[in-house]
């Protein structure tokens, strides 16, 4: 494993903004006193005249982004997921979602892997909140390559987009030279016939690791990466449901309202099969090293293997 490159997707976010600024003249970046952490500081260093710190005032930042977008700018409003989707929810809904403005929300430090800061900063609810807003696109990239591709795709897309990035360095599993990203299109990373593991974000790598272990035990697991939770690739999910039956979802998010819920909503309409959700259960997180927390909360290849085996028997 020594040769695996690891990188936090928040880093990819900052780099992508910096690198795309020349091509997209209307791109501007807003932050709420977290530029060093969200990595928009990378953009600020290269393009200070297009970077605006709003101070610790996320509600206003979202409104300012709306106003900028109404005048043709493409603002990337950046802060931690907790404040972007949580604190500023109603502003995102009413000032960005309702007028359907071309605002991109870069939400970093999503999920339990925030680590030591603990429950107040571990946002496990953002996907649920954001996907209830009509017309909002919700993207949760799994690695550096996908995160950068998502930023580019969001720029080329006209409408509000919520992008979710992580604090923790995670393995780069996609090949930048060949990777193609399309909003709303899931990616089948591995074929299989006994079960489909539908994963998003940093759980995609865990799903791939789990599939290898399962294969050694004679279980053929399909792995699907759903980077766009809304609009969900229903066609792909329903195809998987028909072909493999059992679906196990895996996400670094509450099991209420996130990827697992979205997948379950889809299959109940097109092909009812069992959907077993791996995610943060109905509880708050707590402080600790990110890697240990992910294990503790069952957001691991090990738990995916265990869950698949337990549910294939039923």
């Amino acid at each position, binding site marked *: 494993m020594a040769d695996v490159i690891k990188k936090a997707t928040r880093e990819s976010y900052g780099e992508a903004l910096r690198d795309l600024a020349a091509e997209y003249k209307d791109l501007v970046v807003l932050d709420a006193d977290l530029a060093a952490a969200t990595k928009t500081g990378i953009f600020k260093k290269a393009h200070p005249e297009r970077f605006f710190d709003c101070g610790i005032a996320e509600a206003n930042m979202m409104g300012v982004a709306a106003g900028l977008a*109404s005048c043709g700018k493409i603002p990337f409003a950046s802060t931690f997921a907790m404040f972007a989707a949580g604190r500023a929810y109603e502003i995102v809904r009413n000032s960005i979602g309702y007028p359907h403005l071309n605002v991109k929300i870069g939400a970093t430090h999503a999920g339990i892997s925030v680590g030591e800061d603990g429950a107040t900063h571990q946002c496990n609810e953002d996907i649920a909140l954001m996907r209830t807003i009509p017309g909002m696109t919700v993207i949760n990239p799994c690695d550096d390559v996908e995160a950068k591709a998502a930023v580019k795709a969001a720029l080329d897309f006209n409408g509000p987009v919520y992008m979710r990035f992580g604090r923790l360095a995670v393995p780069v599993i996609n090949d930048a030279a060949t990777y193609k990203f399309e909003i709303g299109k899931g990616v089948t990373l591995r074929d299989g016939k006994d079960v489909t593991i539908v994963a998003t974000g940093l759980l995609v790598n865990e799903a791939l690791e789990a599939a290898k272990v399962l294969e050694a035990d004679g279980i053929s697991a399909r792995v699907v990466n759903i980077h766009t939770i809304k609009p969900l690739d229903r066609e792909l999910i329903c195809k998987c449901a028909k072909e493999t039956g059992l679906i196990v979802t895996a996400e670094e998010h509450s099991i209420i309202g996130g990827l697992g819920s979205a997948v379950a909503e889809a299959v109940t309409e097109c092909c009812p099969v069992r959907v077993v959700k791996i995610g943060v259960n109905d509880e708050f997180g707590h402080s600790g090293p990110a890697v240990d927390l992910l294990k503790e909360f069952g957001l691991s290849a090990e738990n995916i293997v265990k869950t698949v085996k337990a549910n294939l028997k039923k």
Partner: protein
Amino acid sequence: MDAKTKKELQKTACKVRMGVIEGTYNAKSGHPGGSLSISDLLTYLYFDRMNVDPKAPEDADRDRFVLSKGHTAPALYAVLTQKGYFPEEELKSLRHIGAMLQGHPCIHTPGIDMSSGSLGQGISAACGMALAGKLDNKSYRVYTVLGDGEIEEGQVWEAAMFAAHYKLDNLIAVVDNNGLQIDGKITEVCSPEPITDKFAAFGWHVITMDAHDFDSIEAAFAEADTVKGKPVAIIQKSVKGKGVSFMENQVSWHGAAPNKEQYEQAMSELRAQLAGLED
């Protein structure tokens, strides 16, 4: 302001007030009190001040307007009909199913620059528009109107900090200081006073004016034009329900529609006022 211009504005404001009554009466709901207190202001902005053209509502160089106190949309809709953005008939279906005119402003309506009405949010959007103007070296101005109750929202002060920090002197925020909010007098509910001192402390240039005197309004905006490097807050002393005798200074008319009898009386009063302005 010359007498002729003033009289024309007064007449238009009277028609705007009739539009407010027409709209809320037909909607059987809505907010006439605060709509009537900003009718003169909106008339002045749209007929004497702002660079806007109903034939080019999306013009990139136009002045922008955000009704942060979005519940008083009837006044904005009425002024937009007077200006020719859409037919006056639309006021009769305000708030109805399938109607263009929503209970609160929606960006998809001609002449509306921003969806608003969840209080405290419009001023932030106005800041974004003003910042965009600065970035593009455009000379347009951004106007926004807030309620005096609305400024109890914390987001207003986040925006106030932002506007001063980025020296948005192309932004003018008017606070409609009619002294009343849903639950009663603003000073008794959870007082936002002293309003002028607060905006001054946040780094704004503050002007006060009489909301129902076009000379005072014109003088305030003329002073605003001279301000450089700071956003401008105009605190307009207004009368909630202005122009309809039984609605004036009555908190009960914040969010209630006139019935048939009240509608007839209000319209008759406004028609009389209009007639008094005819030569």
